[in-house]
């Protein structure tokens, strides 16, 4: 009887209670074979990528991490909401894990979805120390699928992370093999005329910037789940099944444009949070982002998952097939991307006064609403005086695509060439689907179920993304992490971050510990992310409900940009009063014990 009552009571308590799962990870030196080359690297449980960690929402996890390296290590649970001292950033969350030591992470799982984990020490992550996290939700998911696969991308380079950093510091174009050549000069001459081409080259030469500066790090082999294009990772399906593909970009430096020729993809989740389903033919996945898509292959045939790097210097490839060993055609890489003057729009102190004028127009567009929902009042805030002051002689030297960026008509409507409000108008980076279909934009992302009530931000913090490619220095507001004071936030406030990208590179900005609510102009339906990609020459806003005390890392997720200084510590001051009160009690208890 007694037992029965007790069991009954416990059953009643169940919702409040959780099972505790215990997991183990070892950090090991491993061999990584990409099919193109074999290298020494770092992995988990003897392999790179490490295992897929499967957690349940509501569970308390205990993860024993044993460091078998001869150097310090750490694991950061990317995108997970947890106490700051479990976040795994040496020097911010904890001191790190010494060689030979086992560190036990312990935290409650308060979310569901696709995430990943990686080392936050040195260049261990680019050297292979990463793995996937899949969290099963407590409740039902708003979409159905019969099968699921993690599709984890990376850009495996034959050089070690330390060597890459040193080479970039010695010669910033060390790895850039898509630079403009004499041949391209002549083909541009035949297309745009001699004077126009010469002026174009002079304009870029004057800035000492390269149109070809899309990818700092080329020469990698794209891997999917640790397999190179020739090793062809294959996911098996039965025709008619719905397959959930959990895409994770664990690259050090590479954005990928992903498509599966012959299949529509329905994007259902971004950065672990459900979004209102969007059907796309292709999407761009920034470094550290995740996208979950559902595909439904109906035919008894193989399909290629093709992930081209944004700069088209490399690709990853995998296959979905009814049987192992089946293959589909592998597409050719498209032409290398080239930056335009529009991508330089954020540069301060540029000689072309005209550009600043153009820039203001673009920023308003890019940052507020999508093209469809554009508020025309924004147009009024454009600085027309700058537009008048444009130096038309410079304009001729620029790409014709830039010219459209100057045109009021096309600014409002986005006519002429591909456009996306999250790219500078006339940017050379605006992606288009290989089949001419739908390419996912940030502006398509709407939260399925907003985590927070929509409210006015309490203040705005401007973060200019800055750098100097020729010195390979990267910073925020012109200050590198080594010289920077922490960003101080107050518990309970809602901060609006304004990212102004003044560089010609795309930066995936990752705030640890708290959600990044990306402003796509959808109000309460703005998507909730952990990594926000900021394209060159654009301004992007995100808001954060400051609901986690402690101190956190906030940085560009391109490994070599973060290491070069595009990194900040964020301190959240204060905390919930109840927690603070409890803290005292617990501390006393601890003292007595």
């Amino acid at each position: 009887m007694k037992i029965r009552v007790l069991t009954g009571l416990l059953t009643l308590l169940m919702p409040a209670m959780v099972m505790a799962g215990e997991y183990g990870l070892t950090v090991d030196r491993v061999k990584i074979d990409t099919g193109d080359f074999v290298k020494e690297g770092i992995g988990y449980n003897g392999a790179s990528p490490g295992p897929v960690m499967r957690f349940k929402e509501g569970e308390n996890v205990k993860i024993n991490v044993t460091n078998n390296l001869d150097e310090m290590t750490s694991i950061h649970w990317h995108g997970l909401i947890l106490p700051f001292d479990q976040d795994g950033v040496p020097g911010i969350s904890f001191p790190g894990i010494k060689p030979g030591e086992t560190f036990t992470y312990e935290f409650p799982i308060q979310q569901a979805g696709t995430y990943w984990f990686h080392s936050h020490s040195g260049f261990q992550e680019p050297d292979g120390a990463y793995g996937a996290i899949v969290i099963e939700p407590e409740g039902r998911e708003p979409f159905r699928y019969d099968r699921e696969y993690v599709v984890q991308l990376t850009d495996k380079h034959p050089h070690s992370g330390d060597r890459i950093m040193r080479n970039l510091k010695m010669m910033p174009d060390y790895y850039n093999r898509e630079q403009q050549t004499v041949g391209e000069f002549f083909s541009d001459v035949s297309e745009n005329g001699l004077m126009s081409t010469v002026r174009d080259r002079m304009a870029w030469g004057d800035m000492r910037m390269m149109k070809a500066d899309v990818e700092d790090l080329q020469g990698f082999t794209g891997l999917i789940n640790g397999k190179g294009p020739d090793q062809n990772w294959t996911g098996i399906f039965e025709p008619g099944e719905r397959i959930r593909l959990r895409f994770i970009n664990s690259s050090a430096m590479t954005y990928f444009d992903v498509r599966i020729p012959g299949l529509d993809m329905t994007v259902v989740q971004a950065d672990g949070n459900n979004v209102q389903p969007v059907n796309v033919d292709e999407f761009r996945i920034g470094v550290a982002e995740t996208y979950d898509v559902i595909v439904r292959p109906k035919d008894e045939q193989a399909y290629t998952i093709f992930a081209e790097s944004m700069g088209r210097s490399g690709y990853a490839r995998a296959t979905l097939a009814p049987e192992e060993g089946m293959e589909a055609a592998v597409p050719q890489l498209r032409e290398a991307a080239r930056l335009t003057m529009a991508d330089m729009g954020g540069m301060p102190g540029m000689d072309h006064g005209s550009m600043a004028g153009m820039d203001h127009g673009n920023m308003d567009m890019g940052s507020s609403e999508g093209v469809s929902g554009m508020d025309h009042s924004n147009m009024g805030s454009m600085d027309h005086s700058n537009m008048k002051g444009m130096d038309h002689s410079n304009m001729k030297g620029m790409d014709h695509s830039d010219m459209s960026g100057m045109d009021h008509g096309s600014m409002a409507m986005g006519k002429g060439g591909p456009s996306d409000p999250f790219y500078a108008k006339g940017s050379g980076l605006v992606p288009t689907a290989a089949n001419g279909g739908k390419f996912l934009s940030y502006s398509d992302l709407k939260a399925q179920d907003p985590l927070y009530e929509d409210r006015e931000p309490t203040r705005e913090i401007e973060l200019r993304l800055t750098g100097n490619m020729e010195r390979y220095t990267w910073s925020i507001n012109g200050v590198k992490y080594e010289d920077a004071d922490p960003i101080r936030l107050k518990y309970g406030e809602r901060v609006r971050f304004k990212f102004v990208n003044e560089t010609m590179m795309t930066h995936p900005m990752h705030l640890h510990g708290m959600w990044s609510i990306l402003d796509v102009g959808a109000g309460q339906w703005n998507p909730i992310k952990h990594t926000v990609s900021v394209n060159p020459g654009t301004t992007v806003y995100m808001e954060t409900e400051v609901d986690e005390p402690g101190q956190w890392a906030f940085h560009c997720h391109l490994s070599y940009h973060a290491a070069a200084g595009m990194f900040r510590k964020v301190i959240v001051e204060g905390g919930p009063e109840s927690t603070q009160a409890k803290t005292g009690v617990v501390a006393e208890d601890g003292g007595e014990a």
Partner: protein
Amino acid sequence: MSCIRSLAAVSFLASIGFSTTVIAQEMISDTTARKQPLTAWGVQFEEFEYRYSDDDEELGVWNADAFYGTDEFKVRLLTTGEYEIEEQAYETLENQLVGQIPISKFFDAKAGVRFDTPEGPDRTYAVLGVAGLAPQWFEVDANLYASKDGDTSAEIDAEYELLFTNYWILSATLDATVAFSEDEEIGVGKGLVSTETGLRLRYDLIDRAFSPYVGVVHERKYGDTADLAKAEGGGTEDWFAVIGARIAF
């Protein structure tokens, strides 16, 4: 069963306690390498070559630099030498040790000392210079030298690269020296002293670490310096065919 659940409950309570102690925990300060200035080093041989002149002179030549330091301060060792293979003697041998700091977006200032120890009299100079990337992608290195005896000179070095492809690269170099006073002992006259122009076509064989090249180099002496050379019985102009490799590590 209930036993397991109780255990789970205990662990849950423990974790509550754990997460609340977080705030009581001291927030550590970042003393990791990330918070320190990034130090880098590199060694580059822009020229490492064999030269054969139009009057059958054979030279072994290098022009290299090594650096160590941060964005804010680097120490750089620059070394250049021309070794006459037949005579087994250094025609020139210069070593510079300079400190380097950024002074603008694309330029650094350098200061240090230069030791010349070729065959014949040695010289020691104080060095003051700027180096960086000029508009239109010209790599420029300009230096002022002052010897112990008060002889001063200036040297400018410029390089431009033309990419036939991303692996076949033609580099054009110009090096010119001007002396503000005569130093007869080492054959330097006042005014424009000499120029060295070179064209080298390289192929990046292993990354940018090893790039073999072939090329031509033209050396010429001018004015008083040319007169001094003639008086010594030497030539004032040389054409060289060169073969070598650009090396970086």
